[in-house]
Every structure is written in structure tokens, then in C-alpha cells.
């Protein structure tokens, strides 16, 4: 008798499990539920899709199944919330990736300049701290100076609009480096601490 009740109970339970899997699967949340949280945000299932499904590679080309799916590569890298969803700076610092600084010499080291530039901004947004250290690990001086940024105080007029238009910081950020969706990554120095001496300490503490 109890076996009679148990078996259908198991069936019902498995039904519940499978529906739960469906319901919790983010792809279905967005497709089905108009009141879903973060409806327009790209759900994890839509991120880092393999070439055959990413909307830009031709799925009928040989490449679609030969090229490495990004997820395979990103699975062991530190995560972030935008762009590739990978924190590339952290990946480099923790030596998870070891990109060459020279085309042929795998042991060449960059000359890193550890200099912070604090730009005061109008309005109530925190001041921007620009760290040369993280940038000079990847780039050469000539990449930015003087073509994009004149290395002189007051010589560069940067506004959010110009960044969104793809000028100044927007030459890379918002195109190949992390996008400007997380304000605090750059606007990181609250205005109350805007004294140069204090700025020095806080810049050492930051990053």
C-alpha cells in the first residue's frame, strides 16, 4: 500500500524538480516573466556565448565550431560585472594570465609607472583617480601620450559625454577595456578627502 503511494509521490516530486529547474533557469525567467528582476539585464546564460551562438559569428562557417568558446577560457579567471565579465587586471596580478610584453621574448617585463592622477570633477561625483600602474602594465607611453592625453595638468578637457563618444578614456573603455557602467571604479575618491597629502595616502590604499 505504502509503495503505491510512494511511487506516484516520487513522480510528482520529480515533476516539481524539473519544473523548478526550468523556472529557475534564467533564460526562461526573462522569456516568460514580465515582472522578472532586472528584466533587461543580460542574464548569466546569455553571457560569453560560444561563437556559433553569439550573434555575430556565422554559424555556418567552419570557424563556428573550431574557434575556442570564450567560456572555456574564462572559467578560471576572476569575474567582473561588465564587459567580458572577467576582471583582467586581477587576472594579470594573480598571474592567471601571462601575456607577453614583447612579441618574441616571453620574459620581457614592462616598465611600470606607479603614479596616480586625481582629477577633480564638477558637481557632487567623487573625484576620478587615474592609476598609471594598472595601465602601464599593458600599454606603452606612446599609446596615449600625447595623441590622446597631453601629459600636462589642465590640458585635457574630459567630460562623460566625450567618454561616451569614444574620445579620451572612451578610446578604450567602452570599446575593449571595461565599460563605464560602474561609476565607482573611476570616481573613487570622495570629495572630503581632496587634500593632496591625504590623497597620497588614499591613493596608496586604493587598489
Amino acid at each position, binding site marked *: 500500500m505504502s509503495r*503505491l503511494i510512494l*511511487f*506516484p509521490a516520487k*513522480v510528482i516530486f520529480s515533476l516539481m524538480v524539473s519544473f523548478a529547474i526550468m523556472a529557475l533557469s534564467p533564460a526562461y525567467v526573462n522569456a516568460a516573466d514580465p515582472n522578472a528582476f532586472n528584466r533587461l539585464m543580460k542574464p548569466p546564460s546569455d553571457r560569453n556565448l560560444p561563437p556559433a551562438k553569439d550573434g555575430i559569428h556565422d554559424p*555556418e*562557417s*567552419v570557424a563556428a565550431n573550431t574557434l575556442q568558446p570564450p567560456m572555456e577560457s574564462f572559467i578560471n579567471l576572476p569575474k567582473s560585472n561588465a564587459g567580458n565579465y572577467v576582471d583582467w587586471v586581477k587576472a594579470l596580478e594573480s598571474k592567471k594570465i601571462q601575456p607577453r610584453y614583447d612579441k618574441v621574448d616571453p620574459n620581457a617585463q614592462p*616598465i*611600470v*609607472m*606607479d*603614479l*596616480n*592622477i*586625481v*582629477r*577633480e*570633477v*564638477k*558637481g557632487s561625483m567623487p573625484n576620478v583617480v587615474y592609476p*598609471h600602474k594598472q595601465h*602601464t602594465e599593458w600599454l606603452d*607611453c*606612446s599609446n596615449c601620450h*600625447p595623441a590622446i592625453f597631453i*601629459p600636462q*595638468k*589642465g590640458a585635457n*578637457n574630459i*567630460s*562623460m*559625454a*566625450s567618454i*561616451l*563618444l569614444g574620445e579620451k578614456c572612451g578610446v578604450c573603455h567602452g570599446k575593449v577595456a571595461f565599460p*563605464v*557602467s560602474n561609476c565607482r571604479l573611476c570616481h573613487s575618491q570622495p570629495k572630503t578627502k*581632496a587634500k*593632496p597629502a591625504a*590623497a*597620497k595616502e588614499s*591613493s*596608496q590604499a586604493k587598489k
Partner: protein
Amino acid sequence: MKNKHNYRQLLRVVVTLLLITNVTFLYCEISEADNSVNDNAKLAHSNSVSRKIDLLGRLVQNSSAAARIENSDNDDAKALLKEARSAWENAVIKLEVMNIDQAEISAREGLIIMTRASSAVADTARLKNERLARYKQLRERITSFTEAFQRIASEKQETISYLLDMENIEKTISQAEKLAKEDNYTEANKLLAGAADSVEIALARARHKETLLHELKFNSLEEEFAYEKQRNHSYMLLADLIKKKKKVDEKRLHEFQSSLDENEKMRKKADEMVRNGDIEGAIKVLENGTQNLARTLRASGVVF
């Protein structure tokens, strides 16, 4: 008892049916996808092979690389070019008889050989220009870096001149100049690269762990006004681009346009105020204008 038995039987049947339909469905999807992929893939494949062969043909016949190889003394390279040409002819024949796979193999071989041949014969003219450009670039780099270093040295309280051996740098530059006169740019560039690195290291050491504060302090009100005007202009450019390219719906478009017109008015007003001598007021007007424009942009979906 019998009910129980039937019930269970029914369940088993249902489960089996589900299993069968799922497996069939999966199989069909895979094989259907497979079939359509197969047909498309065959066509795509033969197209891509014929493009490959076209490229190889262009490269081995009338490219500048082929001309360069033929005009050189390098017999090995000439032999490779000949091999590449025969690989191409082979590929063309195989393609004509629809032996796509063999055609592709020949085409690939041809391309690999052609690349080897091309790299065996250096494009001396281009390389010379590159070396010369690099020489000039390095000279300029050393100059601007040393200027920057000297600027920093004069700004600072404590002396940092020990960080950079200027004598050595100048010696290196004159050595490089001598080599350049003898047309030996390769060696000259090596020396200059070393010198450039030394100056860069000195700069990095001079500014190690420092923070430079770029305050919003202007030398004059006119400067601040120019700054604000340029800032406002950048928002205008963004707004123009959005108006042109983004599909904003009619009602929003109307609001958007009126906001842009309002901004134009503010700009003119600010200019007038400057003419009347009230620069501070003009700056405030521009600041407000920019803020309003930014608000409109945010309302139209630009997130910042």
C-alpha cells in the same frame, strides 16, 4: 490489487513513451540540424575553397611579393615560389573536377609555401622605411622623456638628477647618430631603445607612488568659461549623435529637440553675458545648461 497493478503499468507506459519521444526528438533535432548543416556546409566549403584558390592565384601570379621574389637572388625562395605556383595549378585542376578536399589541401599547401617564400625575401625598401621611422620615433621619445624628467626635476624640492645619467644618454645618442649616418639603422635603433628605456625607468622612479592632484583651478575666469563651453559642446555632440542615429519615439523626440534648442539659447545667453562682462554668471548659465542637457540624455536612455 488489480487497480494498483494497472496504475503502475500505466505509469510505466507513460514514462516509456516520454523516453521514446524525447530520444526521437533529440535525434531528429541533431540529425536535422546535421543534415541542413551538411548541405549548407558543403556549399560553403566549396565556396571557401574556391576563394582560397583565388587568393593563392593572385599571390603567386601578380602580387608584389611574387615580383619581389622573382627579382631577388634568393634561389631557394624562387624554388618555393615555383612550388607554390604548381600547388595553385594543381588546386585549380582539382577544383574543376570537383575534388574539393584535394583542392583544399593543395591550396593550403600553396599558401603555406608562399608565406615561407615571401618571408625568405625581405622587402628591403619597406624595412628600410620602417627602420628610419623607428629611428626618428626613438629620437623623439628620448627627447620628450628627458624634457619631462627635467621638468619634474625642477619642480621638486629634493634632487632627483641622480636617477638619470644624462651624459650616458647623450653619448648613446651621438653613437646612434654615427651609426645612422653609416646607414646602420638596426644597430642605431638598438642603442636608442636602450637609452629610451633608461629614461623611462628614470621617469617612473621620479614619480614612484606619487599622486598628482589636477584641481579644477583656473588661472582666469575666461579660462573657466572656455572650459565650460567646451564641456557643454561635448554634450551637444553626444545629443546630436543620438538624435541622428537612435530611434527615439515621436513624443520623446519632440522633448529632446526642445531641450537641445533650450541649450542653444543658453549658450547664446552665456556669450552675451561674457560680452557684458559678467563672466561668472555666464559660467553658471553654462553649467546649468550642461546639467539640463545631461538630464535629457539620461531620460532618453543614455546611462551615465
